[in-house]
């Protein structure tokens, strides 16, 4: 007996979410001022709000963001190129796929980022280490999804190609690859996401780079409001990334 009025009701819940968020911040602010929460451990939300201007103007958070973005772009490009190539290789050579697919899946679950001290030794304390860690973390999902996309092309589409006597490379370029593209994109998105997470994480850990390093620096300086503001900035970046890729995926879905 449910009435369907989907338009108009989505704003209600969104408003509820935002209102709850604001309410929580207001409550925290009040509790700190009253003394229920230690202001040395949790900074005043209002102070955090004020430091936004400071981190943008004085601390150059945008410059740092671009640095991280550049690292992510480098890692992402490597993931895209190597991930899809290796995926295609595994798809083409059945025997390799049977041998390696489980290993790649296992690597996807392993704590690859823990290798960073080793990379520090090999590559030094610089952006290369960070990009390499990002690349390694993003590689497994890209490979796996490429293989999956190619192998789950609907049989009938392949038969259409065969009925037109397409050569194997034409078959691949005109049918298999375009059909697999949405799934491949999912893999690249996952890969980029893992890469970005680990890039910011390693920046934090080795105190070098863009946003991650910034958070670490602020923590060591004990500048709490600015640190919270910087963390929030990182969250904004991940939100933006999520929304952007969701938009692109939906567009790809419609084209399909």
């Amino acid at each position, binding site marked *: 007996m449910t009435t369907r009025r989907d338009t108009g009701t989505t704003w209600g819940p969104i408003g*509820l979410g935002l209102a*709850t968020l604001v309410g929580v911040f207001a409550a925290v602010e009040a509790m700190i001022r009253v003394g229920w929460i230690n202001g040395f451990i949790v900074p005043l939300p209002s102070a955090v709000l004020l430091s936004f201007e400071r981190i943008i103007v004085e601390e150059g958070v945008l410059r740092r963001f671009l640095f991280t973005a550049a690292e992510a772009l480098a890692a992402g490009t490597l993931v895209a190129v190597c991930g899809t190539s290796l995926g295609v290789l595994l798809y083409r050579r059945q*025997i390799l796929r049977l*041998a390696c697919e489980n290993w790649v899946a296992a690597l996807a679950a392993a*704590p690859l980022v*823990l290798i960073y*001290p080793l990379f520090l030794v090999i590559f030094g304390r610089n952006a290369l280490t960070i990009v390499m860690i990002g690349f390694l973390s993003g590689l497994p999902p890209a490979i796996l999804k490429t293989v999956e996309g190619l192998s789950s092309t609907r049989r009938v589409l392949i038969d259409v190609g065969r009925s037109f006597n397409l050569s194997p490379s034409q078959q691949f370029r005109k049918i298999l690859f375009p059909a697999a593209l949405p799934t491949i994109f999912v893999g690249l998105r996952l890969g980029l996401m893992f890469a970005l997470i680990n890039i910011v994480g390693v920046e934090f850990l080795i105190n070098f780079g863009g946003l991650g390093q910034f958070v670490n620096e602020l923590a060591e300086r004990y500048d709490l409001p600015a*640190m919270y503001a910087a*963390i929030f900035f990182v969250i904004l970046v*991940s939100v933006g990334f999520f929304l952007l890729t969701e938009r692109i995926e939906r567009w790809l879905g419609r084209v399909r």
Partner: protein
Amino acid sequence: MARSSSMSAVAHFGVGRVARVRMAIVVVLLALWEAVAMSGWLFRDVVPRLEKIGRALVTLLAKPDLYANLGATASEVGVSIVIGGIAGVAVGLLLGGNRTLGKAFEPYLHYLGPTPKIIFFPIMIMWFGVGGGSKIAMGAISCFFPMAISTAVGMREIDAVLVRVGKSFRAGVGQMVTKIYLPAMRPAMLTGLRLGLGVAIIGVLLAETKLSNRGLGYMVIQSYTRFDIAEMYALLIVVFLLAIAANALVSRLGALRRGGA
């Protein structure tokens, strides 16, 4: 479906052939390694010879130190999974069961999910101290998100007809939960558990590398500071094997009582 087609493919190639290809790949990789190690192309000690790594591994496994630290990490991971898991499932049930709450708050889960949790570590230290507490907190906030999201999704994707079957037989609320909702959600929740375990392990280990005086992550950083690269390799091998084993264990647990996904 994929499994059965790959099983027939294995049958086509022969189990023996797949195993031999795997061995061949391993041998080639090891040979390449040895070649790089011997050539001295990379800075010495950075790519030690296999024998050196092997000896370091044996020495490591003999140290009681290793097991003490392994226990510390394992217990931190274990507790963090329990805390993060229970909180995640509770929130997931709430958001999955109520459409308004879900629409209001689930986006936040998706936004916070892909954030590197390690940047919250300084806050965890301030709140929970420099000891195990902050590591457990790191693991907990890491595994909270995949568990909450997969529980919520699992709840929403329960086949509506199964709920109607239960209602048509006049099952009580408790019966609906134990006999229909939970079993139907089992595959999704196991996926969440697997993912949650993976990120909890990562969260705890990374926290240990940053600030700790025990645990496997601590040992890795120690070998870095002492420049004992061979031991670092040995440690990484041990950690990776353990993490993969833990992941496989959870997968086995999922496949144990068949039927469902």
